[in-house]
């Protein structure tokens, strides 16, 4: 008789336990998945910025290494990025110095800007 009552009392415990566990798991899963999405996004963004920096650096060094330089704005595409090069003569230094600005865009969003001066002689 006592055994029967004990059995009745504990009946349904597994179901409640499972539901309770599932709720905890779902809450934590949602929190973790949001975290993972954020990590993936920031990692992707960081990679794009790094690539943009390397691109800007390469272009800047190439321009500086050129024997001749011409003032103007040059735009072209590289992979998913668009690069804008702005070369301008600095009037105060006559034709001796040029200001070079390289901007790298991704989907029209400015990711990186690098600037330097080239002395023509």
């Amino acid at each position: 008789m006592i055994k029967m009552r004990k059995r009745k009392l504990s009946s349904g415990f597994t179901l409640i336990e499972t539901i309770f566990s599932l709720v905890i798991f779902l809450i934590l899963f949602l929190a973790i998945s949001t975290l993972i999405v954020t990590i993936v996004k920031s990692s992707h963004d960081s990679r794009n910025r790094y690539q943009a920096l390397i691109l800007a650096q390469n272009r800047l060094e190439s321009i500086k290494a050129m024997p001749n330089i011409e003032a103007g704005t040059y735009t072209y595409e590289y992979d998913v990025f668009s690069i804008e090069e702005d070369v301008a003569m600095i009037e105060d230094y006559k034709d001796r110095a040029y200001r070079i600005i390289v901007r790298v865009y991704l989907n029209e969003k400015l990711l990186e800007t690098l600037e330097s001066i080239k002395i023509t002689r």
Partner: protein
Amino acid sequence: MLKKKQANKGAILVLVLLMTSAVISAGTVLLSTSVTNYKMKHINRRVKKAQYNAEGALNEAYAIAIEYIESALGYAHDKENFINSYLNFLLGNCEDLSDNIGLINFLKDNRNYIIYNNSNIFIEAEIFNKIDFLQLEIVASCIDEKIERKIKMTCHILIPEDKSSCNTIEPEDLIYIYDWKLES
């Protein structure tokens, strides 16, 4: 049988908690790795920017030095003692010119820079008289919070032989970069 069933009670909850803690641990490791990676890339970007700023400032200083040499040639051209006048102008010893501060003081003043006149760029300059030529040492440093990039450039400024060479010689021919190195 009943005892075994009773002993299993709460096992799912424990299992779920264990699984969850494992997932949280993995998430934390992933997050910290990602944050470290992001920070490193960010620092690398700042270092490169500081490097380009210091390098740009040095290039501008070089352009200023060429301009100053041109002015020195122009000043010395009408003088009797051409070489002394040329040297005096560069060293800031011209008594007849009130605004002649010398190349060093001109280079040190941020206001004389058109592009690199930011407050985080510092220019140090020194000049040494080496009988046949002047040795100009310029150190440009760019400081971005804890990041500092310092580049040193050593130039030699030549002294024209006489006044007659002034007509054929360009100021660019009288200066050349002797050494260029990263200090820090």
